[in-house]
């Protein structure tokens, strides 16, 4: 203790404490937010699963979507016919159950585990059909055509999601989310069902193979090296320009101050 007491008034002590606390907060945040995304795989549907799904629905969803998923005007849409894929996307990304009615439901740690999610999806699927959850083989990117995936992504997805899937703003507080945490299954389901403001890309317009190509592109660009050392969110030249401008300006001002500063009066 005396060691600290002796040094606590050191000029650098304040900086060290601030740096230590910042590192501590950053580490804690990283640990808390690194909830592993769950990969769900479709399993055989049975009546017991549907019954469990029904219970989960009444518990977590019926307040907004109605007792029988018929929807509530000006509050939540009907879920009849949306399909298991939509349920799996919304629940596995944590968007549903929604935290609040807002411009957009944000991705958060899922409330239901993968088995519960599949049960809920089976229940909604039993109500009015709709696109099912894609199988692991359907979202496999093995042998995918990256070039075609890039062309399709740039023509149809990049406008909102940014050319490397970093996301971007829409109107009235809505935004296209970053695709970095998305699993291949979630990307496939999003294209198939068009969650929230996102348009639909059905299997006849963009075939399953082409969807796999797009997924391959989205997942591949995540591993691209950063030529400048930092990605800066990969949102493009605006951030990079701003960082370079502000950073260089700061150092240039410092340099200008140093160069033009007056001499010390050493001869006095």
């Amino acid at each position, binding site marked *: 203790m005396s060691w600290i007491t002796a040094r606590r008034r050191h000029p650098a002590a304040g900086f060290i404490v601030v740096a230590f606390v910042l590192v501590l907060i950053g580490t804690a945040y990283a640990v808390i937010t690194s909830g592993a995304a769950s990969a769900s795989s479709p399993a055989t549907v049975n009546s017991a699963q549907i019954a469990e799904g029904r219970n989960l629905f009444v518990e977590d969803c019926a307040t907004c979507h109605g007792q029988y998923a018929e929807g509530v005007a000006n509050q939540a849409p009907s879920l009849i016919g949306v399909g298991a894929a939509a349920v799996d996307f919304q629940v596995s990304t944590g968007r549903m159950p929604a935290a609040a009615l807002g411009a957009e439901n944000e991705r958060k740690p899922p409330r239901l585990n993968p088995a519960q999610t599949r049960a809920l999806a089976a229940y909604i699927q039993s109500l009015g059909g709709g696109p099912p959850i894609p199988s692991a083989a359907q979202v496999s990117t093995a042998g995918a055509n990256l070039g075609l995936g890039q062309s399709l992504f740039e023509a*149809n997805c990049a406008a909102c999601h940014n050319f490397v899937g970093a996301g971007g703003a829409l109107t009235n507080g809505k935004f296209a989310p970053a695709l970095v945490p998305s699993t291949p299954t979630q990307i496939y389901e999003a294209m198939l069902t068009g969650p929230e403001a996102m348009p639909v890309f059905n299997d006849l317009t963009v075939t399953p193979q082409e969807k796999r190509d797009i997924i391959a592109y989205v997942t591949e660009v995540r591993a691209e090296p950063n030529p400048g050392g930092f990605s800066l969110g990969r949102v493009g030249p605006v951030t990079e320009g701003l960082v370079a401008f502000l950073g260089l300006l700061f150092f240039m001002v410092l340099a200008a101050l140093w160069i033009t500063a007056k001499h010390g009066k050493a001869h006095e």
Partner: protein
Amino acid sequence: MSDTNSPGQPGTGQPGEGSWPEYLTGAERHGATSSGPSGASAAEPSGHGGPRRVIGTPPPAAARTLLAPSGGAERGEVVRELPAEPDDPRKAKTVEKIVAACFVTAGLAGLAFLVFYGTIGVGSITNALHSNLALGCSMAVMFLLLGIGATLWVRHLMPTVELTEQRHPMASTPQERAAFKETFTEGAEASQFVKRPIIRRSLIAATVPLAVAPIFLLRDLGPLPGTSLDYTVWRKGLRLLVYGTGRPITSAEFNSPGSIISVGPEGYLNNDDAMAKAAVTLIKFRPGELVFGPPAKPGGPTVRNTVVPNWTVDNIVAYSKICTHLGCPAALYEQTTHRILCPCHQSTFDATEGARVIFGPATRPLPQLPIGVDSEGYLIALSDFNQPVGPSFWERS
């Protein structure tokens, strides 16, 4: 910079207030000049030793003055001597070492740059990455250390003396001018330029094309676009192909409400010049969502802010993807609000109302492409757009 030593303000005469009064030269103290800012300090002792030359200062000529003593003194200038050596020799020695170390390290960084350039290469993307980093860092270190060394040198070794250089008339003396004129005339005569008109005239003729050359440079700014901005490559019967896959599309395939897909004209998908104007966004709506206006002939006039009903197929509408503000691809689409957005300046169009502008700097709706179905059921264009796509231009009617 306000500076108490500014030559505009006569010296204050307080010892130590500024540095240059101590550097007054013999010339002033001998009374060669009586005016000038240093007058009040003329009696200050110099306090400097022998005439040791400071690195980077002018050579110790006659009186170690900046201006030639003869001319300067004659014209009544202030003539000052630069200090012979820095104030603190020990500190100067230290600074000298630091500066030298900076320069040596800068030189080594420059050598490292050459080595990196020779050894890393840019054969692969990874190599190019490493090469960029290594070359950039070594060059940055080199220039930074050169700058730091130079600045330290200037700040700690060179004297900080405000010097005034007087301006004089720049014209030569009449004698010099007369002499020049004489030489010039002599040269002209001796070269026979005057005597031999054929050489003179042919030389002048040879330079005429050079004078015309700028016209050719201007010509390369053209030709004028003519009517090329008024039309796209869309014409009757061209199929709509999905951009990327190049597949034609039927209304039965493109049947999910809220769908969107980027398409281009058959045969032009890889023609960037054509696609720059012909890119089209295809949107599928639910029944009843579209606000229809009166029918129109393909290519004919339409009612603004409405969808032309006979230019759609089964609630599928085709809009130009080129923003009417500045030509960015207006390709963001919210299927819940039916808004088409342009990412560049946030122009927002309502797709259900003929791409009516509801926000942003765009002034016109996105043009609607008349579409129909061919005998095999594929979506085709019925004509070109009925108006120029993209931003306004001077000749746009």
